[in-house]
């Protein structure tokens, strides 16, 4: 089975790119693959805990928590991007790691496929 690395740079609210990336992760894991999920730039918003679910806005916290229970999904936020936005370690969703950008490149190194989804 393969490893897919997905880097996302779009925000949780204001774009559906993260929704797409999460759905793709679910499909890949369902097929037996593993997924490394990198959040950078505005996408670090997804790493913040305490998201409320409204029908008018994307809400992915539950989906991420479900993916983490599979054991085939890693999610990591860019630490500097998060800190710059006021998302601190204590604000981070349980199971979500924080690293510098070299983590993403290392994940790309060993990935069979990389899907890089840019921001705005």
């Amino acid at each position, binding site marked *: 089975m393969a490893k897919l690395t997905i*880097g996302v*740079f779009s925000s949780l609210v204001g774009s559906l790119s993260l929704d797409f990336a999460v759905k793709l992760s679910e499909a890949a894991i369902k097929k037996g693959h593993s997924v490394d999920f990198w959040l*950078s*730039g*505005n996408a670090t918003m997804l790493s913040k805990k305490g998201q409320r679910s409204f029908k008018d806005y994307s809400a992915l916290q539950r989906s991420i928590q479900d993916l983490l229970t599979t054991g085939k999904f890693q999610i990591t936020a860019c630490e500097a*991007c998060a800190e710059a936005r006021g998302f601190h370690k204590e604000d981070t969703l349980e199971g979500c790691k924080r690293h*510098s*950008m*070299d*983590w*993403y*490149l*290392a994940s*790309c*190194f060993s*990935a069979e496929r*990389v899907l*890089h989804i*840019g*921001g*705005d």
Partner: protein
Amino acid sequence: MATTKLAFIVKSLPYKTEASRLALTHAIASQTVEIYLEDGDLVEPLLAFVGDGVLNCLRNQKAMQHYGITSLEQHLKNALLLDLRVLICKEDVERFGLSEDALIMDAEDIGGETRASIAPFNEIMKEMDSSDHLLFF
């Protein structure tokens, strides 16, 4: 021992969004990636500026004076200082009426030895073809 070539393709305008800054910072992060890799494994980065992205390479940027943040010029010079390969699309440089004099071609002022290259798009395409993964910013 393995090498993975990552091509960072920058097509976004400077400063309008964070994209080109993130391209540069991610590309520069290739210099510390070995902490996650086995001995001898390597990430080989390539930075290529195409389309509107060539405007990131303009000299004499004043981001610190106007926005109080580091300029993309500083990041690009850091990339050259670290010997990253930098290609700037020739056709797009011409499309904007620019010449080499207007562009950041080296980082000599901070001790860099590597120079950027103005390359035809078909050469950039060949580099993309030979890359393991493409990262568009």
